[in-house]
């Protein structure tokens, strides 16, 4: 659903596109070069898009709410794609340099759209886990769970004199508890981790007596908790790391565009 604060930007974006399209057509009819109009507009848009990253560093001064900047960033990003097509007149340009520039531009756009979608979808999924974990704390939380599981396994062995649970831990469960697992499934909303815990993870249960089952159920409960933390890890990790693609690619596009602009001004005009 479109948030109310985005609507004025959408209207402004549509108006800008219509105006630039009309003006570039007028310039074309007057035997001018319409690509100059669309090219400069696109360049200004890219600079404005890049300013969003600068705004994040300027939180100490009142330069407008970040949410307004994001709404503008999203609309300007979509407008930039439309402007790019208007500028090139095709989906794929012909020159090698322009092809590199176009490829980077498409990558920035794709990562941007991808980022927008995951940022809308994943927070809800995290809330539904019922727990909240700070990303930087996740390794420590997983370590604590692993320690508890190992302590339970040892205690079970000492109390019952049977090493069935310990063997199952070494052979199977250790793989699960060692590090975050089933990341892709967590991101797409699957339950591969739960499925694994109920299947291979619980395979040893039929060989346990009641006392061992008590310990084993506690271990599985910790497994369920780990599944929730894994989900946080997978989703939070993706929500942070997509920017590692989007931001450097954006900078590359702006730098290549500057060079493109210089070449056009020196040789084409």
């Amino acid at each position, binding site marked *: 659903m479109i*948030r109310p*604060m985005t609507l004025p930007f959408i209207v402004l974006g549509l108006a800008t596109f219509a105006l630039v399209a009309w003006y570039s057509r007028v310039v074309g009819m007057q035997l001018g070069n319409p690509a100059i109009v669309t090219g400069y507009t696109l360049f200004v848009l890219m600079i404005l898009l890049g300013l969003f990253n600068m705004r*994040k*560093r*300027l*939180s*100490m*001064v*009142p330069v*407008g*709410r*970040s*949410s307004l*900047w*994001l709404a503008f960033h999203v609309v300007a990003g979509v407008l930039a794609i439309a402007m790019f097509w208007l500028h090139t007149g095709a989906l794929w340009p012909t020159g090698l340099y322009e092809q590199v520039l176009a490829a980077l531009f498409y990558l920035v756009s794709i990562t941007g759209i991808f980022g927008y979608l995951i*940022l809308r979808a*994943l*927070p*809800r999924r*995290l*809330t539904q886990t019922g727990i*909240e974990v*700070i*990303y930087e704390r996740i390794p420590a939380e997983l370590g604590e769970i692993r320690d508890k599981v190992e302590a339970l396994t040892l205690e079970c062995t000492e109390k019952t004199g049977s090493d069935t649970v310990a063997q199952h831990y070494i052979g199977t469960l250790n793989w699960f508890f060692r590090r975050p697992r089933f990341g892709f499934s967590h991101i797409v909303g699957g339950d591969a981790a739960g499925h694994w815990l109920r299947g291979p993870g619980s395979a040893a249960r039929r060989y346990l007596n009641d006392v061992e089952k008590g310990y084993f159920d506690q271990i599985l409960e910790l497994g369920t908790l780990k599944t929730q933390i894994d989900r946080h890890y997978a989703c*939070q990790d993706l*929500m*942070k790391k997509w920017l590692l693609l989007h931001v450097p690619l954006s900078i590359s596009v702006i730098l290549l565009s500057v060079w493109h602009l210089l070449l056009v001004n020196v040789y084409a005009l």
Partner: protein
Amino acid sequence: MARPQRWSTPFGEEMTDGDVESLLKRPDIAAIEADNFPKHTPLSGVLRNDTRIVRYRSGDIVVREGDYGNSAFLVMNGSLRVVLAPELPQNLLGRQVAREKGFFEALAQLWTNSRVPEVRDISRYESQGLRGGVDSANARVFLQDVPAVLDEHRTAKLEDGALFGELAALGRVPRTATIFAEEDATLLEIRWQGLRELRKYDEGWRRMIDQRYRENALKAHLQESVMFSRLDEESLQAVADKVLFETYGSFDWNVAFQRQRQSGSGKEPIIARQGEYPDGVLMIRAGFARVSVKHGNGERTLTYLGAGNSFGLGELYSAWKNPDIQEMALHTSLSALGYVDILRVPAPVLEEHVFPFMEPPTSTTMDIAGTPVADDALMEWAVEERFVNATRAMVIDLERCVRCDDCVRACASTHGGNPRFRRHGRTFDNMMVANACMHCADPVCMIGCPTGAIHRSVEHGTVIINDITCIGCATCANSCPYSNIAMVAIRNQDGETITDPDSGKPIFKATKCDFCEGQPGGPACVRACPHDALKRVHFQELNPSETAQ
């Protein structure tokens, strides 16, 4: 281990039997009827355990206007001055003087913030007007030029035998005046528990305290209520003469609450019980109370009441309007959430002065009982967690929050590189109340600060800490029921931890969210959230049933 008793922790460690003996010889104490005190709480025990003798040097500030305190003072010798008008400047009181940064000054934080957190310019502490060291019992802010203060401000003298601070201590309301020692003075400081016993068991003290309240504050409180706002002076006086004062719960409820949070159990003092006969309207003067109704095998919270709200009006009005109805009982129960100060206005007074001229109440709390339980689960949770105390809670919508920590970075960038909150806290459904100062309506953190470093900003009403006069005693951090105040070791500009030359231990300062006091544009955390997930809210805004009476 033996069960801790009422006087396991005396107020003054240094009080001796000799001190008690000499106190009992003072005329104002000797006038107290010691025989009226029960065996388990004798007068000598109250003096021994609930009072302490405090000495002030000339210029020492004893209480500051606007501070919260849990004790009253009896002047034993020396003289003090009450500042009447104009008020003392904030800096003389040891408070932070708010000054909003300009755009470029705020921007300069981008490069002036140190790479290591909590760096302080030590030279700022040199002219701090503090004496008594870091011991919370002895640290004082003092006025350096008493004659100049006396010249420029109208003051009144307090001498041997004068009692002050009792209304703020019992009513949990801010102190109404600043008092300082004109010359070296010795005071008997009585903590609220002792004051409560003196008021309870000695007719003279009760009459004196109640009389002072009736004279100084009661009529103003009554007039704030819609019920009494239309009364003429004579009727208002008649009502004021009949009002009864009651307190419920513990003054230091934060301690019990923290224990209750850990153990998951605890009982709230019942003020009025469902089904009982209401003998008057209960007006909340300070604190919070829960309105509940029996539901299944438990109690369902319908709403909560804060200062200015009243309870039982609907039932009494209805009984007055329909005298034929035989059975008149309370539809709901009222219990204390922590400490509650109540004014009980007897029914006959209302029938004579209020009901004949009053519009019938349009809604009652029972209207809420008709809604599904799930509808008010949020409010039930907020009451249980005592978030109803919040005036600026940091609430994060977890379905919008992308966990990017832009809010944390924004906070750090406006606070010298160290954030003043943790993006972590209690959650309900999709809401998280983060560990950020909530700028409480009932700020228990402000009780007991020896230098008044933690105080309400005069300009904005936020609770802020003056770093210069904070002595790092951690009284506020230990009192905060929500663990929202952090003690940090401070560093010099080379990044080295500053240590006390005598003990060699690091010097700590209390830090917390100051709602970006002095920063242009309001709280940086809110402005920095790209998804509008973070809001600072008064909890009443999240409670649609709040308006019901």
